[in-house]
């Protein structure tokens, strides 16, 4: 493997008696498309929240491109290049699609600029480029609160890409999207991300067809532990994964 962009070593997290993460060891290299699978409560979101700094592990260390980020605040981790989208899109409902992108670009460029127009031509051009990649151009002027759920998901991810992330985390990018739109939406996301081939992407997903189609590697969680970490076909064929994740083998 090339030098790891993300390296988690011996990560553990408990909430009282509940073990949310135990002995998590993961290395993610450039360009990987990693699917995180597991039933609800398996530890996927806890893992994502520890990478992004919203939860601090009780044990272990997390490094981003060699820098220890274990104890850093979420904003500091974000500024180092860990970007994410949310299971429930976190947008600015009163603003238009373009304005949401401009907010993301303004935040990327730092605060304290009281003179530079929010609609600086360079930023508008950048925003439009990303909107095109995500096929959102037609919604450019629409207020976000009026948009359908799938479009909001795409915008949420497009905003995360404004700052050329070192690592991108997508939390259930196709959840709450109609079954017949899921594949098309994930195709749109992945083709948009293909323009940043070096950026590793971790995505939490419950649909194994999508995992099989878009992941180059799959990490399966169960009860706070990693029970499988390999190529999709190999992981999905493992008995533990079929028993605890996909439910193809019933009972203990």
């Amino acid at each position, binding site marked *: 493997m090339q030098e790891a962009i993300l390296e988690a070593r011996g990560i553990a997290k408990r909430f009282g008696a509940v073990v949310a993460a135990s002995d998590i060891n993961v290395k993610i290299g450039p360009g990987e498309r990693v699917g995180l699978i597991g039933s609800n409560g398996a530890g996927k979101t806890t893992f994502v929240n520890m990478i992004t700094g919203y939860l601090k592990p009780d044990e272990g260390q997390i490094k981003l491109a060699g820098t220890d980020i274990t104890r850093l605040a979420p904003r500091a981790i974000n500024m180092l290049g860990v970007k994410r989208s949310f299971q429930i899109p976190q947008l600015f409902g009163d603003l238009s699609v373009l304005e949401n992108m401009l907010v*993301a670009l303004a935040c990327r460029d730092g605060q304290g600029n009281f003179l530079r127009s929010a609609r*600086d031509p360079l930023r508008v051009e950048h925003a439009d480029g990303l909107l095109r990649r995500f096929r959102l151009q037609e919604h450019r002027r629409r207020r976000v609160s009026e948009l359908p759920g799938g479009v909001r998901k795409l915008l949420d991810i497009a905003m995360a890409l404004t700052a050329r992330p070192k690592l991108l985390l997508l939390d259930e990018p196709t959840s709450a999207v109609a079954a017949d739109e899921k594949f098309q939406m994930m195709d749109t996301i992945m083709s948009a991300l293909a323009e940043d081939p070096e950026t590793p992407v971790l995505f939490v997903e419950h649909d194994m067809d999508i995992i099989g189609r878009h992941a180059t590697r799959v990490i399966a969680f169960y009860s706070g532990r990693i029970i499988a970490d390999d190529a999709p076909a190999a992981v999905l064929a493992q008995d533990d994964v079929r028993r605890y994740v996909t439910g193809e083998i019933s009972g203990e």
Partner: protein
Amino acid sequence: MNTIIHSTALARGLQGSSRPLRTLAAAAATFTVLAVAGLCVPAWLTYLVTIAAGNALVSLGIVALMRGGVVSFGQGMFFAAGGYGAALLFNQAGWTDALALAAAGGVLAVALALPFAPLLARYRGIFFATLTLALSMVAYGVLMKWPELGGSDGFTVGRPTLLGQRLDGPEGAYRLFLLTVALAAAIGFLARIYFASSTGLVTLAARDNELRVEYLGASVRRLIGANFLIAAFFGGVGGALVVLSLGHVEPAFSYWTVSGEFVFIAVLAGYRSVPAVFIASFLLEIVRSFSSAYFPNTWQLALGLFLLLVIRFLPQGIGSLWTREAR
């Protein structure tokens, strides 16, 4: 070098939209119209516009905060800081130039706000509102008990000068009116540029979803803190201008009912439009004047009914009549 960088930033800002030039033209046109109108209308009306413009600047500070999702109920403190600062500089330090006194009022108000900004920036909603109210009432109590500052009676201020000329008589009042309107137009223009800037847009976004703004890498606390200082500056300049027109300053400037009137103007205007703040302030002064004349001692009743009607029919303020969003 710094000047070059700032000039470039400004140039790019101006390139980004034709709005700044349009706003500048609108501010200049408004000033010209009011300057000409001031020659034709009765003196009481120019005086009323002068007070309304000064008060509008104070409320514009609240609007700057409202855009970030917080409301100050203690803006009277900065109104008083600017007023007392200008009055003391006039009486004690011999500063007489109205423009310098107005600027000093703003600077003194910012100096007063500076130690509290980091604390207040941590709070939202009712906590922010209550803390600002508490600060203004502490300031009111201090002013009431400070004999050197005139105690509960306050003290009077003489007529200032402008460019070396004393602003006496009707002509002096007209020049003070011109100065106040010019400063209001200039600050309104700058506020409009700020609201349309990157930071202004991020402030609006923070009102909507603070978590995402933080996650995009901006500090909402810094934004609120900066807006608090901007609000203080606007309040201080407004306070100084009003005191120079009134010729008197007193602790009541920092009393909660005065802050309430500034909030009233901000609510009436809404946070979408800068000109709406000036219009709302003028409307309030008109309602106050006519109510006082025709319904003495019950003008608050008229004020309350007026506010009820506005909230019922224009919940986003009168600015929403002509703009979806002033960004």
